[in-house]
């Protein structure tokens, strides 16, 4: 797993799983549709990504679909970091 996906996965585990949570979470685990993250608690994940990767994710892009797996989140972040590099 590349460092970005690993960092996002580590954050998700730290921020959303309880200590006694025995669920296995990897890059393809459904976070929102699987009930691990909800739209209310998602804001801290968005803020973490914005801060760590120095990007700004408009609310319209921070959809439950885009935030549903570590993989889809990483792709979203890559899109914004690439756009920033071009600019």
């Amino acid at each position, binding site marked *: 797993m590349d460092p970005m996906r690993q960092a996002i996965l580590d954050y998700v585990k730290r921020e*959303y799983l*309880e200590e006694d949570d025995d669920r296995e979470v990897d890059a393809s685990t459904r976070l929102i549709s699987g*009930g691990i993250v909800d739209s*209310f*608690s998602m*804001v*801290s994940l968005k*803020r973490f990504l914005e801060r760590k990767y120095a990007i700004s994710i408009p609310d319209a892009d921070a959809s439950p679909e885009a935030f549903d797996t570590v993989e889809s989140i990483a792709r979203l972040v890559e899109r914004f970091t690439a756009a920033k590099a071009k600019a």
Partner: protein
Amino acid sequence: MSWETKARAHFRAELDSIRSAGLFKEERVIRSVQGAEIEVEYPPGAPPRKVINMCANNYLGLSSHPEVVRAAHAGLDERGYGMSSVRFICGTQDIHHRLERRLTEFLGTEDTLLFPSCMDANGGVFEACFGEQDVLIADRLVHASIVDGMRLCKAMQDTFKHSDMAHLEEKLIEHAGRRFRVIVTDGVFSMDGDLARLDAIADLAERHDALVFLDDSHATGFIGKKGRGTHEHCGVVGRIDIITTTLGKAMGGASGGCVSGRRELVEMCRQRARPYLFSNSVAPEIVAGALQVMDLVSRSTERRDRLEENAAYWRKGLSEAGLDLRPGDSPIVPVMLYNAKLAQEFSRDLFQEGIYGVGFFFPVVPKGQARIRTQLSAAHERRHLDLGIAAFRKVGAKHGILGLKRKEILAKFGE
């Protein structure tokens, strides 16, 4: 756009998708007053059937209490049916102020403002008091009305893991640069029935110079030795900055809610909270009934004591029968079934046994956490509870779950 050519089909499809996801909610019609025993018409068209109600927020059994009904009648006669106004135009009567003073005394705060409901209080209070420079840090299991209220406010939002004080402290430190940091919590969490660790929260708030917001809707009237709420139970009366609560549960169960707390914050609500400014006054008969409720709960702790005994008896009985319960010491006792379909079938079977208890499943509770949420009332008599425990035992045996815990139930029924 014509309704018939396009819109009706769209909304029918939406409703069908709710149905096929198993999330369609249906009302069950009650043909009696609210109480420990009610007459329910279910399924629709069936002759009304007397069942024991295990799912009302009627914690103190005051919804149909004769003294409350009498007081509401008198209020109707003396102050009329409605105000036809919001509070600040011509909708404030002497009894509104009297009730606000009584609530202030009871909750141990500085001032109180009535709202049409606690949903409205939560919808208005954050936007009225806080702004862009502030952060609201909420427990992840707070009530939906708080989530909505926070979203209407421009303050930054964050959450902490349920009742996890270490995580809350991390967040307080993370947001140290904000003007005001507000810790937001329920007193009793409605789905699990557990109590917030308000003493630890108040200590953290003090250490980090934060404010505390508490929604005590599932506590006012019965949690704490005098029933003043979770802040009384945790020994932090006077240390909570904002309390919202409802008259729609233990306190007579009609409607109405309030924001109570620091004088200036309550005044900000009076000036700026939109549900207060733009929605009608609480109706006079409800205010009159609520004043009688205040008399009853201030006069004696008998009802909250009986409720506590009932909750302990119920919890012990279900536990001995082999049901898997969420631990706790409130009158909300969730019977854990984990599987959504099992929860629905269990509820139907209970109804056949004369017990009215509703299944809760995703998205109301997390996936794999389906349950029947039972709620005790001071109006329950021992025979009601014995019949209820016997029914749970019988239905539990039918589904083969007695003595089983989460992993075993999930292994048998899946998520």
